[in-house]
């Protein structure tokens, strides 16, 4: 706080004189005196000690992930984060999400953003990544903006129903008022059936990989059809799965977006999270946000610069079509540190643990009477369990045993009534999985 210098009384008088009033109270003249300090019906004042106790009691009313055996993902995932991530994140030099207004003054911040971008490119197999979006849903919404600008005079976006239902909702909200139609997600469709919806008016096709049900679909034909029709292909991905799967870049994706939360960002009751956005260089001028680049200074030393802000309000003024120059910088930094700590091998090991534990759980559950598991496609760390009774009833019974069960798919997908989406991560011990199975067995 060394830079904090309050106004002096003399300065206050000078400022008041400059605007032609004598006291600070004069500034509030427009507010009738009777409304300036109305009597508020509040409880009695509390001491700091009492407030801490009260807030703690409120906080204790929440249940948190660490207290349960958690088998729910559906977009927000329970993973282990090395404690070094938080320690580095909380350092004063980093502890802001804000863009430095003279970015090159903050070489450390720029270097961290550059490294984050580079890692996201490596993970997704893309050529350029920006410094982040608010979350996975808004990064998909921005992919629509890019596609509509990149492909002139086309107004159709084909969305796979396998994309997170909330993402599809956000995409529609974000794009209301634009001349654009969203098709494809009103009923279950295979990749081949989705491809049939791609016409000469289609700007983009978006799919999820693994899809919302945890499954890995083969999109190769769909990508071919889209490109033949001149449409862009966007992949919504779980970045952790990419440590194991073929990167979307190698599958022909033009844009790759997703939620970075699985990479070192805690569940935190729903946020703040961080969206990532990666593209082919060809589309880099259309993207929102900013890109930091690496160069050398006049002495030949590595230096980092704010390279591109093609749509931001601080560059484009009245022609701007984005204002996320202040975005999830701190969460992107968490992702960056997390990935750097785990390394390529460590990340792959985490992904393998997720895969193997999920498959162990799926096999055990599939063997139970009254339950079946959809194994029609390969899956990562989530899978769909068909139950013989309502999911809510099963979850009520599980929670009594300290287990948070799967996500009830019937809410978003009427044809998937009595099916739950289960998630198993490296955080679930074998013992937890075995207890889950034994509780489910009694419920069948």
């Amino acid at each position, binding site marked *: 706080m060394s830079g904090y210098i309050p106004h002096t009384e003399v300065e206050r008088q000078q400022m008041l004189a400059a605007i032609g009033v004598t006291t600070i109270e004069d500034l509030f003249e427009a507010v009738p005196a009777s409304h300036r300090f109305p009597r508020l019906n509040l409880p009695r004042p509390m001491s700091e000690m009492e407030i801490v106790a009260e807030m703690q009691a409120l906080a204790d009313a929440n249940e948190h992930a660490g207290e349960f055996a958690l088998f729910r993902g559906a977009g927000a995932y329970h993973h282990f984060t090395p404690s070094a991530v938080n320690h580095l994140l909380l350092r004063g030099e980093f502890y802001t999400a804000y863009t430095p207004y003279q970015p090159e003054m903050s070489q450390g911040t720029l270097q961290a953003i550059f490294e984050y971008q580079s890692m996201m490119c490596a993970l997704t197999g893309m050529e350029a990544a920006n410094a982040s979006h608010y979350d996975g849903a808004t990064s998909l919404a921005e992919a629509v903006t890019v596609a509509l600008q990149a492909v*002139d*005079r086309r107004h159709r976006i084909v969305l796979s129903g396998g994309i997170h239902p909330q993402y599809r909702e956000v995409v529609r909200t974000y794009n209301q008022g634009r001349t654009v139609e969203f098709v494809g997600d009103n009923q279950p469709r295979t990749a081949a059936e989705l491809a049939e919806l791609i016409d000469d008016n289609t700007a983009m096709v978006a799919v999820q990989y693994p899809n919302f049900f945890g499954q890995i679909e083969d999109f190769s034909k769909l990508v071919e059809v889209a490109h033949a029709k001149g449409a862009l292909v966007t992949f919504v991905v779980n970045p952790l799965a990419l440590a194991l799967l073929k990167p979307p870049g190698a599958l022909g994706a033009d844009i790759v977006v997703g939620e970075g939360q699985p990479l070192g960002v805690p569940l935190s009751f729903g946020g703040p999270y961080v969206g990532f956005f990666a593209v082919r260089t060809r589309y880099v*001028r259309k993207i929102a946000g900013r890109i930091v680049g690496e160069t050398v200074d006049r002495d030949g030393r590595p230096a980092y610069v704010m390279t591109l802000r093609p749509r931001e309000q601080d*560059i*484009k003024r009245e*022609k701007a079509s984005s204002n996320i120059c202040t975005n999830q910088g701190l969460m992107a930094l968490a992702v960056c540190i997390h990935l750097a700590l785990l390394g390529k091998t460590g990340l792959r090991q985490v992904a393998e643990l997720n895969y193997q534990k999920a498959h162990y759980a799926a096999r055990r559950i599939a063997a139970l009477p009254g339950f079946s598991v959809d194994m029609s496609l390969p899956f990562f760390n989530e899978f769909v369990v068909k139950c013989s009774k309502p999911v809510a009833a099963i979850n009520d019974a599980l929670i009594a045993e300290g287990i948070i069960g799967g996500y009830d798919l019937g809410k978003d997908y009427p044809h998937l009534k009595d099916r739950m989406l289960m998630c198993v991560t490296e955080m679930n011990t074998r013992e937890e999985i075995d207890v889950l199975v034994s509780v489910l067995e009694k419920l069948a």
Partner: protein
Amino acid sequence: MAALKFPSDVRYAQSDEWVRVEGDIATVGISDYAQDALNDLVYVEFKGVGTKVDAGDEVAEVESVKAASSIYSPVAGEIVEVNAALETTPETVNSDPYGAGWLVRIRVAGGVSLEHLMDAAAYQSYCESR
């Protein structure tokens, strides 16, 4: 200022575009004054071929190391060609603004009037007055 070129075979807009009409085709670019003021161009983007424009509509956008600027058509018509070579070599606009650095070609409808545009002498004194 003295070094800047103001050729007399084109007409100029207040927003610093030039236009040269040959038959029913109007070629549009930015003036030497404009490229000099913008400094090194790093990016050029066009409205698509086939776009119908009125005089004053945006036909391209150029970005230099200093600023991003819209380029407006001085005439009404339909974009029939864009100088796609500039997408990889935008610096051509700096080196040859009236020649290889042209931006778009517009098919003008009927007898196009250039009366609202300045001739070289008027544009030069307009630039000198700024």
